[in-house]
């Protein structure tokens, strides 16, 4: 459905030095499927999202949606792309306009894309989608400040889902949330993906969240995809040394494993120093 073919992007720094942020990135998100993209800070994740959404023009390569080039799309095609591809941001505190009510926030897309015949139909859709994400009609007149972080992220998801998108691009959607609340939003995204047959591009630094949510995983290192494959393969038998290093560095909630890993690292460092 969404495809990136050899996408490259560089920036020229103030010093005149050229920085290659993305180098020949190819990715494919299929209808109803989830792809996780993991990378550390500076790997090019945010630039990739901007390019994928058509918000930034890549220097090379192509982005297609349903076979049509996003860069050279006609106005109607571009409108369809912007309706069918929705974004959920990391920080639910800054991504929702604090002066808009929940009803205004969630119905905004319906108005922009003229997707409701009447105000009544529009409100019905808003209530329906709020209920889908576990909120109710009583949320309609309230402002974002009345909600906790997890609830705000539900509102952001409802806002994205209201216009019945085909593809959700999630940019670190749970990293700002408390652990006990994270799980609620992860479960919600999982349910929505299955119920609505959504495609999901899930961009995150947290490999555990990606393993949980995504059928396929791509690993981005310094602007290059170094490994891509089904979840069980990437996590079970990582091929690239960078993927292995990332996986081994993640703290696991298992004291015995954590300690034996540290002892192994120390032993490796000592034998390296001795050599």
């Amino acid at each position: 459905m969404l495809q990136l073919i050899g996408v490259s992007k560089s920036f020229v720094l103030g010093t005149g030095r050229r920085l290659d942020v993305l180098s020949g990135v190819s990715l494919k998100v299929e209808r109803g499927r989830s792809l996780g993209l993991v990378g550390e800070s500076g790997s090019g994740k945010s630039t990739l999202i901007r390019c994928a959404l058509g918000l930034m023009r890549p220097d090379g390569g192509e982005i297609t949606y349903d076979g049509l080039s996003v860069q050279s799309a006609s106005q109607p095609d571009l409108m369809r792309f912007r309706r069918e591809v929705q974004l959920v941001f990391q920080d639910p505190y800054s991504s929702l306009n604090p002066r808009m009510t929940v009803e205004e926030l969630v119905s905004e897309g319906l108005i922009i894309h003229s997707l409701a015949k009447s105000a009544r139909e529009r409100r019905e859709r808003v209530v329906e989608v709020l209920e889908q994400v576990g909120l109710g009609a009583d949320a309609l007149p309230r402002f974002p400040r009345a909600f906790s972080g997890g609830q705000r992220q539900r509102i952001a998801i409802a806002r994205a889902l209201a216009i019945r998108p085909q593809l959700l691009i999630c940019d670190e959607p749970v990293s700002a949330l408390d652990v006990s609340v994270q799980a609620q939003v992860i479960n919600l995204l999982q349910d929505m993906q299955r119920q609505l047959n959504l495609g999901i591009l899930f961009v995150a630094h947290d490999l555990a969240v990606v393993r949980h949510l995504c059928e396929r995983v791509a690993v981005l290192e310094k602007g290059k995809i170094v490994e891509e494959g089904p979840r069980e393969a990437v996590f079970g038998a990582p091929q690239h040394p960078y993927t292995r290093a990332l996986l081994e560095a993640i703290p696991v909630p298992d004291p015995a494993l954590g300690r034996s890993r540290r002892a192994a690292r120390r032993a490796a460092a000592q034998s390296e120093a001795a050599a």
Partner: protein
Amino acid sequence: MTLELEPLEQQITQMHATALPETPLLDVSDLTVDVVSGGRELRLVDGVSFSVQRGERLALVGESGSGKSVTAQALMRLNDRVRLGGRIDFEGEDLVAAAPTRMTALRGRRMGMVFQDPMSSLDPLMTIGDQIAETLRIHGISRADADRRALAVLDELKVDRAAERLRAYPHEFSGGMRQRVVIAMALVGDPDLLIADEPTTALDVRVQEHVLDLLDEISMQRALAVLLITHDMGVVAGFADRVMVMYSGRIVEENAVADLFATPRHPYTRGLLDAIPRVDVTLPRLHAIPGAPPSPAERPSGCHFHPRCPAAMTVCSTVEPLPVHEGSARLRCHLYGKS
């Protein structure tokens, strides 16, 4: 290699254990922290008791609003707009009653602190050498001595080309390197207790691993006690000897790290562990805890966790559970203890 090393680490830990004096390094009893907000008095920390032994690594885990950072700041009396109650016995002295000048003498020398964001702990206009040495200069140590010790502590933290790096400014450093500088500032005075508040939360996983390894090694070599404040159960598991789980201003469960992970008893602790996605196994579904942690202004009656608790009973909404012992754990939950 691994097999040779593990017994050695155990030996060191045992040596520390046998050398321990009877009195703990830090003994906090019934600590309360109150703040006036909008004309109303709020209790941020509500009767917290714990102790830290010399050389021990103790983790304080909690979510936002639990009071974990407020507790850490209270130990060092960093916030003078709050009112403290209870006792903080540190090396035989009650810090709740200590004069501000006494606190200045203790901070940086007997106790050091590391915060989450290294950039906000560093002065962009000062070389890192001056910043590390400043801690000692405040305590009247000569310029030459302070510089020498700043260099030694950077070496201890395995910073390459340390002498050269001392003349650099914070912006020339990566996030992980900045955090090492902040740790160096906390360690240069050779404290007995290091309080580290989410020291690796802003770092990438590989850098986090490195920083935690360094803290682990230094705490072992110096017999330095570390109070690690974090929200990450994975970090706790790999680093701490003992864990305290804090919820809504109270410590709800405390245990040795292996016992806590093997047998979490409090429904909140169990819920937290069940809510974490795992990188080493694919789980069908996460067990989410319903609702959200309460803000200090809206804490429920009785046990603060009762509205979210799957095992809540009638008593939980009215009666505050008192600490009880169950096996090796100390916990606050009506499911445990007699009655």
